[in-house]
């Protein structure tokens, strides 16, 4: 009985050791890939930092308002460093995940393949959000300047509405890209967008009828006045 127990114990131990020996190379390869990934990501981070500094990326971000937005979000690092860190972690995580697949575990492999399939969507959603942010900043500032220079009332409100519309649109597009409840997002976007437009139309047409009248009168009046204003600026 004792010997049978010992035999079974030894067999289990052998099986465990065999499993460990079978699994160990995979872990070692995974670790090796992760170390290589760390090195590659670090080198790429240096290259990206150098390239962005040469292209004066920080100055462009200052100009576009991205730095200001990061500052408001309490992100204290410069846009160049931030972009380099994003590249580092994307490369490192991608290679680390590839390393896990070397362990040949079915469940892990399935998760990994899903991760790689999802990665392009994640990147494109991030890009959409970033472009949306830049476009919203640019166009809202253009609207603000146009309204101030032509004397249209409430210039900041116009600017905020332009920014909000573009941000909502880009956010909806990003969510759609991530396939997060795409139908609900699309429907919600259409409803929200339509509601905002209808609200604005009603507010302007009914609630602000007098304001609308005064605004139009003022605009037309201004135009007439400008004809009378004889200054030749050049």
């Amino acid at each position, binding site marked *: 009985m004792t010997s049978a127990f010992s035999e079974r114990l030894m067999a289990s131990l052998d099986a465990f050791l065999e499993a460990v020996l079978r699994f160990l190379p995979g872990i070692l390869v995974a670790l090796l890939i992760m170390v290589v990934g760390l090195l590659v990501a670090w080198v790429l981070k240096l290259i990206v930092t150098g390239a962005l500094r040469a292209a*004066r990326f920080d*100055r*462009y971000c*200052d*100009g*576009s*308002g991205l730095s200001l937005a990061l500052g408001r979000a309490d992100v204290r690092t410069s846009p160049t460093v931030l972009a380099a860190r994003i590249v580092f972690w994307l490369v490192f995580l991608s290679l680390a995940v590839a390393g896990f697949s070397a362990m040949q575990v079915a469940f892990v492999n399935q998760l990994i393949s899903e991760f790689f399939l999802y990665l392009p969507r994640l990147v494109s959603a991030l890009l959409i959000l970033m472009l949306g942010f830049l476009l919203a900043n*640019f166009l809202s*500032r*253009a609207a*603000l*300047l*146009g*309204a*101030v*220079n*032509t*004397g249209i009332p409430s*210039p*900041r409100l116009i600017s905020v509405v332009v920014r909000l519309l573009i941000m909502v649109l880009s956010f909806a597009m990003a969510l759609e890209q991530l396939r997060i409840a795409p139908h609900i997002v699309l429907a919600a976007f259409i409803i929200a967008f339509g509601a905002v437009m209808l609200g604005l139309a009603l507010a302007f047409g009914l609630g602000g009828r007098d304001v609308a009248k005064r605004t139009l009168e003022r605009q037309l009046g*201004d*135009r007439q*006045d*400008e*004809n*009378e*204003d*004889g*200054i*030749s*600026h*050049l």
Partner: protein
Amino acid sequence: MPDLSFLPDSLRHELAVVGEVDVLVGIPSYNNARTIGHVVRAVQGGFAKFFPDCRALLLNSDGGSRDGTPEAVREASVGSFETILAAHPLRTVHRIVTPYHGIPGKGSALRTVFAAAAATGARACAVVDSDLRSVTPEWVDLLISPVLRHGYDFVAPLYHRHKYDGTITNSIVYPLTRALYGARVRQPIGGDFGFSGRIAADYLEHDVWSSDVARFGIDVWMTTTAITGPFKVAQSFLGAKIHDAKDPSVDLSDMLMQVTGAVLALMDHHADRWKAVTGSTPVPTFGFEYAVGLEPVPVHLARMLERFRTGARELQSLWERVLNPATWTEVARIAAAPDHAFVFPAELWVRVIYDYAIAWRRGRMDREHLLRSLTPLYLGRTAAFVIEARDASADDVEGIIEALCQQFERDKPYLIGGWDEPGGGS
């Protein structure tokens, strides 16, 4: 010979038929049927009176007018030359009416004039605006003779204008170009110039015809290129400048952006040159200066102040990024002042312009947005100038402008310091 391939075939053919000429006058136009006939007659009279033995060409470079401008040019005629005390011209005065190609704007129109000068080998040329009501045959003499008879390459105009007219010139372009390049060309963007065939060929060699130079920036570009190049520069007193009522569709913000953008682009291009210049010197002046009566100019002071204050309120975050903190504090302080106590001191205005130049150089924001954000500040300064000059005579107003110019010159080290600061560069 410069590349003239951009000219339409029909114009090249017409120029070949005309052959060589001695003098050429170009008239850029766009929907100026009401006034261009008078300008054409003045030029014709000028040719007859002052250059009767010269081969002459009058070229109208039109931007696609739909009000009959080309027909008005073709039909305009002096009639009897005796009435203007001139003999009938000894030689044919050629007349060409042509549309120009390129970006719509005065710059593209003048490019065609320069090309025609090169194609015909014209020795002396002039351009006059097509909306002028005060142009006389003497203008042709005053713009062309310094080139033809005294060897100058570029002749800028010198006018008497109403004290409220030409505010972009008086508050930005003249003081800034004078402080930068050291030449006191009083009307750098006057619009009417005389120039030699040599400088016309040089203008054509520059690759600027798709930039703001092709639009409102052409005048300051011509002047600056003449001042900074190996060219002899003079100015001629032409009398009063009275032109047709302005086109209300021309937006002040666009105009200011294009002119200021052209000045700043030229600053960037000639940085090594202007940094070495201190002070300024007068340029030779032709013509007999006399006092003229000018039509009153209505201004809307309250609206200018309102636009300035709206800018201070709504564009605060933009101005804070452009202006030096001390400059911004001062701008905010004057914006809060009541109308009766409103002043925009020359020292502050100079700092505003220099801060904008530095911000433009460093690319602190999109350049178009940057320049558009200057409009309310410009209106604030213009309002202050109108208040200051309300009871001033023409001489007093020149004194105010002279004081501003001297302030620009005194403060130039501030500009150089900011321009050269690390982090600058386009």
